[in-house]
Protein backbone atom coordinates (compact mmCIF):
# COMPACT_ATOMS: atom_id res chain seq x y z
CA UNK A 1 0.00 0.00 0.00
CA UNK A 2 2.84 2.34 0.71
CA UNK A 3 4.50 1.27 -2.54
CA UNK A 4 3.93 4.60 -4.17
CA UNK A 5 5.77 6.43 -1.44
CA UNK A 6 8.87 4.36 -1.93
CA UNK A 7 11.77 6.13 -3.51
CA UNK A 8 13.07 3.19 -5.48
CA UNK A 9 10.16 3.09 -7.86
CA UNK A 10 11.14 4.24 -11.31
CA UNK A 11 9.47 7.47 -12.23
CA UNK A 12 8.02 5.99 -15.39
CA UNK A 13 5.73 3.67 -13.46
CA UNK A 14 2.08 4.61 -13.67
CA UNK A 15 2.62 7.44 -16.10
CA UNK A 16 0.05 6.13 -18.60
CA UNK A 17 -2.77 8.57 -19.16
CA UNK A 18 -6.38 7.99 -18.17
CA UNK A 19 -9.38 9.96 -19.33
CA UNK A 20 -12.28 10.03 -16.93
CA UNK A 21 -15.13 12.49 -16.39
CA UNK A 22 -13.47 13.69 -13.20
CA UNK A 23 -9.84 13.46 -14.18
CA UNK A 24 -7.62 13.64 -17.21
CA UNK A 25 -3.96 12.90 -16.79
CA UNK A 26 -1.40 10.32 -15.71
CA UNK A 27 -2.73 7.50 -13.56
CA UNK A 28 0.05 7.97 -11.05
CA UNK A 29 -1.27 11.42 -10.22
CA UNK A 30 -4.83 10.14 -10.11
CA UNK A 31 -3.81 7.43 -7.65
CA UNK A 32 -2.20 10.02 -5.40
CA UNK A 33 -5.27 12.24 -5.51
CA UNK A 34 -7.48 9.27 -4.71
CA UNK A 35 -5.36 8.14 -1.79
CA UNK A 36 -5.29 11.71 -0.50
CA UNK A 37 -9.05 11.68 -0.96
CA UNK A 38 -8.85 14.79 -3.11
CA UNK A 39 -10.84 12.80 -5.65
CA UNK A 40 -13.62 10.53 -4.45
CA UNK A 41 -12.83 6.90 -5.18
CA UNK A 42 -16.46 6.33 -6.12
CA UNK A 43 -16.12 8.79 -9.01
CA UNK A 44 -13.61 6.51 -10.64
CA UNK A 45 -14.37 3.33 -12.52
CA UNK A 46 -11.60 0.91 -11.58
CA UNK A 47 -12.59 -1.26 -14.52
CA UNK A 48 -12.04 1.64 -16.92
CA UNK A 49 -8.67 2.38 -15.38
CA UNK A 50 -7.74 -1.28 -15.71
CA UNK A 51 -8.71 -1.22 -19.37
CA UNK A 52 -6.43 1.74 -19.88
CA UNK A 53 -3.63 -0.03 -18.06
CA UNK A 54 -3.98 -3.10 -20.27
CA UNK A 55 -3.97 -0.95 -23.39
CA UNK A 56 -0.91 0.77 -22.09
CA UNK A 57 0.82 -2.53 -21.42
CA UNK A 58 0.04 -3.62 -24.94
CA UNK A 59 1.36 -0.41 -26.42
CA UNK A 60 4.54 -0.81 -24.43
CA UNK A 61 4.84 -4.31 -25.91
CA UNK A 62 5.23 -6.23 -22.72
CA UNK A 63 4.69 -5.99 -19.04
CA UNK A 64 6.97 -4.40 -16.58
CA UNK A 65 6.81 -6.53 -13.47
CA UNK A 66 7.46 -3.50 -11.35
CA UNK A 67 4.63 -1.55 -12.88
CA UNK A 68 2.16 -4.44 -12.92
CA UNK A 69 2.80 -5.13 -9.24
CA UNK A 70 2.42 -1.49 -8.37
CA UNK A 71 -0.75 -1.25 -10.40
CA UNK A 72 -2.28 -4.30 -8.72
CA UNK A 73 -1.43 -2.96 -5.27
CA UNK A 74 -3.03 0.39 -6.07
CA UNK A 75 -6.15 -1.25 -7.53
CA UNK A 76 -6.49 -3.47 -4.47
CA UNK A 77 -6.44 -0.41 -2.22
CA UNK A 78 -8.91 1.45 -4.46
CA UNK A 79 -11.29 -1.50 -4.47
CA UNK A 80 -11.03 -1.88 -0.72
CA UNK A 81 -11.81 1.81 -0.29
CA UNK A 82 -14.68 1.48 -2.69
CA UNK A 83 -16.09 -1.56 -0.96
CA UNK A 84 -15.80 0.33 2.30
CA UNK A 85 -18.00 3.00 0.76
CA UNK A 86 -20.51 0.53 -0.62
CA UNK A 87 -21.18 -1.24 2.65
CA UNK A 88 -22.56 0.40 5.77
CA UNK A 89 -19.55 2.05 7.28
CA UNK A 90 -18.18 3.65 10.37
CA UNK A 91 -17.72 7.40 10.43
CA UNK A 92 -15.33 9.01 8.00
CA UNK A 93 -11.65 8.57 8.35
CA UNK A 94 -11.60 4.83 8.05
CA UNK A 95 -9.93 4.92 4.67
CA UNK A 96 -6.94 6.63 6.21
CA UNK A 97 -6.70 3.88 8.75
CA UNK A 98 -6.96 1.25 6.08
CA UNK A 99 -3.88 2.77 4.57
CA UNK A 100 -2.04 2.06 7.74
CA UNK A 101 -0.55 5.39 8.79
CA UNK A 102 3.10 5.01 9.74
CA UNK A 103 4.78 1.63 9.38
CA UNK A 104 5.35 1.51 13.16
CA UNK A 105 1.71 1.95 13.93
CA UNK A 106 0.81 -0.58 11.26
CA UNK A 107 3.21 -3.07 12.77
CA UNK A 108 1.94 -2.52 16.30
CA UNK A 109 -1.56 -3.06 15.00
CA UNK A 110 -0.68 -6.28 13.30
CA UNK A 111 0.75 -7.57 16.59
CA UNK A 112 -2.32 -6.54 18.45
CA UNK A 113 -4.65 -8.05 15.89
CA UNK A 114 -2.71 -11.30 16.02
CA UNK A 115 -3.25 -11.38 19.78
CA UNK A 116 -6.96 -10.74 19.36
CA UNK A 117 -7.14 -13.57 16.85
CA UNK A 118 -5.51 -15.91 19.31
CA UNK A 119 -7.86 -14.86 22.07
CA UNK A 120 -10.73 -15.28 19.59
CA UNK A 121 -9.75 -18.93 19.42
CA UNK A 122 -9.96 -19.08 23.19
CA UNK A 123 -13.39 -17.44 23.06
CA UNK A 124 -14.57 -20.05 20.60
CA UNK A 125 -13.62 -22.86 22.94
CA UNK A 126 -15.00 -21.13 26.04
CA UNK A 127 -18.31 -20.47 24.27
CA UNK A 128 -18.54 -24.06 23.08
CA UNK A 129 -17.93 -25.20 26.62
CA UNK A 130 -20.38 -22.67 28.06
CA UNK A 131 -23.10 -23.73 25.63
CA UNK A 132 -23.33 -27.06 27.44
CA UNK A 133 -24.57 -25.41 30.63
CA UNK A 134 -28.26 -24.63 30.59
CA UNK A 135 -29.71 -22.22 33.10
CA UNK A 136 -33.27 -22.48 34.25
CA UNK A 137 -35.58 -19.94 32.59
CA UNK A 138 -38.86 -21.28 33.88
CA UNK A 139 -38.91 -19.23 37.07
CA UNK A 140 -40.94 -20.03 40.19
CA UNK A 141 -43.94 -22.34 40.08
CA UNK A 142 -47.46 -20.99 39.54
CA UNK A 143 -48.08 -20.86 43.26
CA UNK A 144 -45.88 -17.78 43.35
CA UNK A 145 -47.46 -16.11 40.33
CA UNK A 146 -49.63 -13.86 42.47
CA UNK A 147 -46.49 -12.17 43.73
CA UNK A 148 -45.92 -10.60 40.37
CA UNK A 149 -48.68 -8.02 40.27
CA UNK A 150 -46.33 -5.45 38.86
CA UNK A 151 -44.83 -7.43 36.07
CA UNK A 152 -46.23 -4.95 33.59
CA UNK A 153 -45.53 -1.93 35.73
CA UNK A 154 -42.98 -0.38 33.45
CA UNK A 155 -44.23 -1.80 30.20
CA UNK A 156 -45.82 0.79 27.96
CA UNK A 157 -47.53 0.21 24.62
CA UNK A 158 -44.67 2.18 23.08
CA UNK A 159 -42.04 -0.11 24.57
CA UNK A 160 -43.95 -3.07 23.21
CA UNK A 161 -44.19 -1.51 19.76
CA UNK A 162 -40.47 -0.76 19.78
CA UNK A 163 -39.67 -4.36 20.75
CA UNK A 164 -41.90 -5.73 17.99
CA UNK A 165 -40.50 -3.31 15.42
CA UNK A 166 -36.92 -4.18 16.33
CA UNK A 167 -37.65 -7.85 15.61
CA UNK A 168 -39.79 -7.34 12.53
CA UNK A 169 -37.77 -4.59 10.90
CA UNK A 170 -36.38 -5.69 7.55
CA UNK A 171 -32.59 -5.69 7.40
CA UNK A 172 -31.14 -2.40 6.16
CA UNK A 173 -30.97 -2.17 2.42
CA UNK A 174 -27.69 -1.46 0.72
CA UNK A 175 -27.53 1.49 -1.60
CA UNK A 176 -26.19 -0.04 -4.77
CA UNK A 177 -27.09 2.81 -7.06
CA UNK A 178 -23.48 3.39 -7.93
CA UNK A 179 -22.80 -0.17 -8.95
CA UNK A 180 -23.58 -0.21 -12.63
CA UNK A 181 -26.04 -3.03 -13.16
CA UNK A 182 -25.89 -5.49 -16.00
CA UNK A 183 -29.06 -4.78 -17.90
CA UNK A 184 -29.18 -7.83 -20.12
CA UNK A 185 -30.63 -11.14 -19.07
CA UNK A 186 -30.30 -14.64 -20.45
CA UNK A 187 -34.10 -14.82 -20.61
CA UNK A 188 -34.23 -11.85 -22.96
CA UNK A 189 -31.41 -13.25 -25.06
CA UNK A 190 -33.23 -16.60 -25.29
CA UNK A 191 -36.26 -14.86 -26.75
CA UNK A 192 -34.18 -12.97 -29.29
CA UNK A 193 -32.27 -16.04 -30.41
CA UNK A 194 -35.40 -18.22 -30.68
CA UNK A 195 -37.16 -15.51 -32.67
CA UNK A 196 -34.26 -15.18 -35.10
CA UNK A 197 -33.82 -18.91 -35.58
CA UNK A 198 -37.42 -20.05 -35.76
CA UNK A 199 -38.66 -17.30 -38.02
CA UNK A 200 -35.96 -17.52 -40.66
CA UNK A 201 -36.60 -19.87 -43.56
CA UNK A 202 -33.30 -21.67 -43.29
CA UNK A 203 -33.64 -22.50 -39.59
CA UNK A 204 -29.85 -22.21 -39.36
CA UNK A 205 -27.55 -19.35 -38.58
CA UNK A 206 -23.99 -18.62 -37.71
CA UNK A 207 -23.23 -17.43 -34.21
CA UNK A 208 -21.65 -14.36 -35.78
CA UNK A 209 -25.03 -13.49 -37.33
CA UNK A 210 -26.91 -14.07 -34.09
CA UNK A 211 -24.77 -11.49 -32.31
CA UNK A 212 -24.46 -9.02 -35.16
CA UNK A 213 -26.66 -6.50 -33.36
CA UNK A 214 -24.71 -6.73 -30.09
CA UNK A 215 -22.79 -3.61 -29.29
CA UNK A 216 -21.05 -4.70 -26.12
CA UNK A 217 -19.13 -7.82 -25.13
CA UNK A 218 -21.49 -8.56 -22.26
CA UNK A 219 -24.37 -8.92 -24.74
CA UNK A 220 -22.40 -11.43 -26.79
CA UNK A 221 -21.64 -13.41 -23.64
CA UNK A 222 -25.31 -13.50 -22.69
CA UNK A 223 -26.37 -14.60 -26.21
CA UNK A 224 -23.84 -17.40 -25.99
CA UNK A 225 -25.23 -18.49 -22.60
CA UNK A 226 -28.71 -18.47 -24.13
CA UNK A 227 -27.51 -20.76 -26.92
CA UNK A 228 -25.99 -23.15 -24.38
CA UNK A 229 -29.35 -23.23 -22.60
CA UNK A 230 -31.12 -24.12 -25.84
CA UNK A 231 -28.50 -26.74 -26.64
CA UNK A 232 -28.98 -28.30 -23.20
CA UNK A 233 -32.71 -28.53 -23.91
CA UNK A 234 -32.06 -30.09 -27.31
CA UNK A 235 -33.72 -27.21 -29.13
CA UNK A 236 -30.65 -26.28 -31.18
CA UNK A 237 -27.73 -28.15 -32.62
CA UNK A 238 -24.25 -26.62 -32.49
CA UNK A 239 -21.37 -27.36 -34.82
CA UNK A 240 -17.91 -25.87 -34.92
CA UNK A 241 -15.57 -27.23 -37.57
CA UNK A 242 -12.34 -26.09 -35.95
CA UNK A 243 -11.07 -24.12 -32.98
CA UNK A 244 -12.11 -20.50 -33.21
CA UNK A 245 -14.00 -21.34 -36.40
CA UNK A 246 -17.55 -20.35 -37.20
CA UNK A 247 -20.22 -21.81 -34.94
CA UNK A 248 -23.16 -23.17 -36.94
CA UNK A 249 -26.45 -23.08 -35.09
CA UNK A 250 -29.31 -25.30 -36.30
CA UNK A 251 -32.87 -24.83 -35.02
CA UNK A 252 -34.53 -28.07 -33.92
CA UNK A 253 -37.54 -26.54 -32.22
Amino acid at each position, binding site marked *: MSAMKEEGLSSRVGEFPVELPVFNGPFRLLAELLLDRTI*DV*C*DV*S*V*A*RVTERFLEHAEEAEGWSLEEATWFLAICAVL*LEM*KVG*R*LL*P*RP*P*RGEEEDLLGGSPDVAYARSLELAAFRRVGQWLREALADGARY*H*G*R*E*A*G*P*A*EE*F*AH*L*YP*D*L*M*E*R*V*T*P*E*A*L*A*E*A*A*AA*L*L*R*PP*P*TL*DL*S*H*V*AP*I*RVSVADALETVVAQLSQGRKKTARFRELVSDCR*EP*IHVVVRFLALLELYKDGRVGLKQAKNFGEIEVKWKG
Partner: protein
Amino acid sequence: MNGEAPPRDEMLRALEAVLFVAAEPVSSTVLAQLLETDRGAVEASLARLAEDYERAGSGLVLRNVAGGWRLFSHPSASPVVERFILSSRHTRLTKAALETMAIVAYKQPVTRHQVAAIRGVNSDGVLSALVDRGLLEEVGRDEGPGRPLLFGTTPEFLERLGLASIGDLPSLAPLLEEPERDDASDVSEEIPIEPESDDGA
Protein backbone atom coordinates in the same frame (compact mmCIF):
# COMPACT_ATOMS: atom_id res chain seq x y z
CA MET B 1 -29.98 -40.83 56.79
CA ASN B 2 -27.54 -43.64 57.34
CA GLY B 3 -25.04 -44.62 54.67
CA GLU B 4 -24.38 -42.36 51.75
CA ALA B 5 -26.23 -42.89 48.52
CA PRO B 6 -23.87 -43.88 45.71
CA PRO B 7 -23.20 -41.02 43.27
CA ARG B 8 -25.90 -40.61 40.67
CA ASP B 9 -25.18 -42.32 37.41
CA GLU B 10 -25.24 -40.75 33.98
CA MET B 11 -28.94 -41.45 33.48
CA LEU B 12 -30.00 -40.06 36.81
CA ARG B 13 -27.93 -36.98 36.15
CA ALA B 14 -29.53 -36.45 32.74
CA LEU B 15 -32.97 -36.98 34.27
CA GLU B 16 -32.31 -34.37 36.91
CA ALA B 17 -30.92 -31.94 34.33
CA VAL B 18 -34.00 -32.27 32.11
CA LEU B 19 -36.41 -31.81 35.03
CA PHE B 20 -34.38 -28.78 36.07
CA VAL B 21 -34.76 -26.92 32.77
CA ALA B 22 -38.39 -28.01 32.18
CA ALA B 23 -41.07 -25.36 32.63
CA GLU B 24 -43.87 -27.92 32.94
CA PRO B 25 -44.39 -31.42 34.31
CA VAL B 26 -42.71 -34.06 32.12
CA SER B 27 -44.29 -37.48 31.81
CA SER B 28 -42.26 -40.59 32.47
CA THR B 29 -43.02 -41.69 28.89
CA VAL B 30 -41.34 -38.58 27.49
CA LEU B 31 -38.44 -39.00 29.89
CA ALA B 32 -38.03 -42.63 28.83
CA GLN B 33 -37.89 -41.59 25.16
CA LEU B 34 -35.36 -38.88 25.87
CA LEU B 35 -33.13 -41.24 27.80
CA GLU B 36 -33.69 -44.13 25.41
CA THR B 37 -34.79 -46.47 28.12
CA ASP B 38 -38.06 -47.88 29.46
CA ARG B 39 -40.56 -46.28 31.79
CA GLY B 40 -39.76 -48.71 34.57
CA ALA B 41 -36.13 -47.62 34.66
CA VAL B 42 -37.18 -43.98 34.57
CA GLU B 43 -39.63 -44.42 37.41
CA ALA B 44 -37.06 -46.18 39.55
CA SER B 45 -34.65 -43.32 38.90
CA LEU B 46 -37.30 -40.74 39.73
CA ALA B 47 -38.00 -42.45 43.04
CA ARG B 48 -34.32 -42.56 43.81
CA LEU B 49 -33.97 -38.84 43.00
CA ALA B 50 -36.91 -37.87 45.21
CA GLU B 51 -35.42 -39.89 48.02
CA ASP B 52 -31.97 -38.36 47.53
CA TYR B 53 -33.43 -34.89 47.78
CA GLU B 54 -35.24 -35.72 50.94
CA ARG B 55 -32.29 -37.36 52.58
CA ALA B 56 -29.94 -34.51 51.70
CA GLY B 57 -32.39 -31.90 53.01
CA SER B 58 -32.43 -30.37 49.53
CA GLY B 59 -34.12 -27.07 48.72
CA LEU B 60 -35.81 -28.89 45.83
CA VAL B 61 -38.65 -31.41 45.81
CA LEU B 62 -39.61 -33.78 43.04
CA ARG B 63 -43.36 -34.23 42.72
CA ASN B 64 -45.65 -36.16 40.46
CA VAL B 65 -48.28 -33.66 39.37
CA ALA B 66 -50.79 -33.36 36.56
CA GLY B 67 -49.53 -36.24 34.51
CA GLY B 68 -45.86 -35.68 34.94
CA TRP B 69 -42.87 -35.03 37.13
CA ARG B 70 -41.70 -31.63 38.06
CA LEU B 71 -39.15 -30.02 40.36
CA PHE B 72 -40.37 -27.43 42.86
CA SER B 73 -38.69 -25.29 45.43
CA HIS B 74 -39.08 -26.81 48.91
CA PRO B 75 -42.20 -25.57 50.73
CA SER B 76 -40.15 -24.76 53.82
CA ALA B 77 -38.19 -22.29 51.69
CA SER B 78 -41.33 -20.53 50.47
CA PRO B 79 -40.99 -17.44 52.69
CA VAL B 80 -37.52 -16.73 51.32
CA VAL B 81 -38.56 -17.50 47.75
CA GLU B 82 -41.47 -15.11 48.12
CA ARG B 83 -39.20 -12.43 49.48
CA PHE B 84 -36.88 -13.00 46.55
CA ILE B 85 -39.70 -12.63 44.05
CA LEU B 86 -40.98 -9.50 45.74
CA SER B 87 -37.51 -8.00 45.94
CA SER B 88 -37.01 -8.46 42.23
CA ARG B 89 -40.31 -6.77 41.55
CA HIS B 90 -38.60 -3.58 40.48
CA THR B 91 -36.57 -5.41 37.91
CA ARG B 92 -38.09 -5.06 34.51
CA LEU B 93 -39.74 -7.72 32.53
CA THR B 94 -36.91 -9.67 30.93
CA LYS B 95 -36.03 -8.78 27.37
CA ALA B 96 -37.16 -12.25 26.31
CA ALA B 97 -40.59 -11.75 27.90
CA LEU B 98 -41.01 -8.29 26.42
CA GLU B 99 -40.07 -9.52 22.96
CA THR B 100 -42.36 -12.52 23.17
CA MET B 101 -45.26 -10.42 24.38
CA ALA B 102 -44.62 -7.86 21.63
CA ILE B 103 -44.67 -10.50 18.90
CA VAL B 104 -47.83 -12.12 20.21
CA ALA B 105 -49.51 -8.73 20.62
CA TYR B 106 -48.81 -7.65 17.06
CA LYS B 107 -48.94 -10.96 15.22
CA GLN B 108 -51.71 -12.78 17.06
CA PRO B 109 -52.84 -15.43 16.70
CA VAL B 110 -49.38 -17.02 16.49
CA THR B 111 -47.90 -20.43 17.16
CA ARG B 112 -44.92 -21.11 19.42
CA HIS B 113 -42.98 -21.90 16.32
CA GLN B 114 -43.69 -18.53 14.72
CA VAL B 115 -42.61 -16.72 17.86
CA ALA B 116 -39.41 -18.74 17.97
CA ALA B 117 -38.77 -18.10 14.28
CA ILE B 118 -39.05 -14.34 14.73
CA ARG B 119 -37.01 -14.19 17.92
CA GLY B 120 -34.45 -16.64 16.61
CA VAL B 121 -34.53 -18.69 19.83
CA ASN B 122 -36.79 -21.23 21.46
CA SER B 123 -39.36 -19.26 23.41
CA ASP B 124 -41.50 -21.98 24.98
CA GLY B 125 -40.49 -21.23 28.56
CA VAL B 126 -41.21 -17.53 28.20
CA LEU B 127 -44.53 -18.23 26.49
CA SER B 128 -45.75 -20.52 29.24
CA ALA B 129 -44.60 -18.07 31.89
CA LEU B 130 -46.63 -15.31 30.23
CA VAL B 131 -49.63 -17.64 30.00
CA ASP B 132 -49.20 -18.46 33.70
CA ARG B 133 -49.19 -14.76 34.48
CA GLY B 134 -52.47 -14.35 32.62
CA LEU B 135 -51.03 -11.99 30.02
CA LEU B 136 -51.22 -14.40 27.10
CA GLU B 137 -53.56 -17.30 26.46
CA GLU B 138 -54.24 -20.13 24.08
CA VAL B 139 -56.81 -18.89 21.62
CA GLY B 140 -57.22 -21.90 19.34
CA ARG B 141 -55.35 -24.19 17.02
CA ASP B 142 -53.75 -23.55 13.69
CA GLU B 143 -55.15 -25.47 10.71
CA GLY B 144 -51.66 -26.47 9.57
CA PRO B 145 -49.93 -29.81 10.13
CA GLY B 146 -49.90 -30.90 13.74
CA ARG B 147 -52.58 -28.30 14.49
CA PRO B 148 -50.28 -26.29 16.79
CA LEU B 149 -51.72 -24.11 19.54
CA LEU B 150 -52.28 -20.46 18.74
CA PHE B 151 -51.54 -17.75 21.27
CA GLY B 152 -53.01 -14.31 21.75
CA THR B 153 -53.20 -11.60 24.39
CA THR B 154 -55.71 -11.64 27.26
CA PRO B 155 -58.12 -8.93 28.42
CA GLU B 156 -55.82 -8.58 31.41
CA PHE B 157 -52.98 -7.70 29.07
CA LEU B 158 -55.01 -4.83 27.62
CA GLU B 159 -56.05 -3.73 31.06
CA ARG B 160 -52.47 -3.66 32.31
CA LEU B 161 -51.45 -1.52 29.35
CA GLY B 162 -54.44 0.74 29.69
CA LEU B 163 -55.68 -0.07 26.21
CA ALA B 164 -59.34 -0.31 25.23
CA SER B 165 -58.63 -2.80 22.46
CA ILE B 166 -55.71 -4.38 20.69
CA GLY B 167 -56.22 -1.91 17.85
CA ASP B 168 -55.04 0.84 20.19
CA LEU B 169 -51.48 -0.45 20.18
CA PRO B 170 -49.15 2.03 18.47
CA SER B 171 -48.86 1.47 14.73
CA LEU B 172 -45.75 -0.44 13.77
CA ALA B 173 -45.37 1.07 10.31
CA PRO B 174 -43.40 4.20 11.25
CA LEU B 175 -41.13 2.12 13.44
CA LEU B 176 -40.33 -0.39 10.74
CA GLU B 177 -38.28 2.02 8.72
CA GLU B 178 -34.56 1.61 8.83
CA PRO B 179 -33.01 3.08 11.91
CA GLU B 180 -31.33 6.26 10.75
CA ARG B 181 -27.66 6.01 10.13
CA ASP B 182 -25.86 9.31 10.15
CA ASP B 183 -24.14 8.72 6.87
CA ALA B 184 -26.40 6.40 4.94
CA SER B 185 -28.81 9.00 3.66
CA ASP B 186 -26.24 11.14 1.95
CA VAL B 187 -24.25 8.37 0.37
CA SER B 188 -26.21 8.40 -2.83
CA GLU B 189 -25.65 12.10 -3.18
CA GLU B 190 -21.96 11.81 -2.64
CA ILE B 191 -21.51 9.01 -5.07
CA PRO B 192 -22.72 9.79 -8.53
CA ILE B 193 -23.89 6.98 -10.68
CA GLU B 194 -21.41 6.33 -13.38
CA PRO B 195 -23.55 6.87 -16.42
CA GLU B 196 -21.49 5.48 -19.23
CA SER B 197 -19.92 2.48 -17.62
CA ASP B 198 -21.38 -1.00 -17.56
CA ASP B 199 -18.81 -2.33 -15.22
CA GLY B 200 -18.55 0.26 -12.54
CA ALA B 201 -16.78 -1.53 -9.77
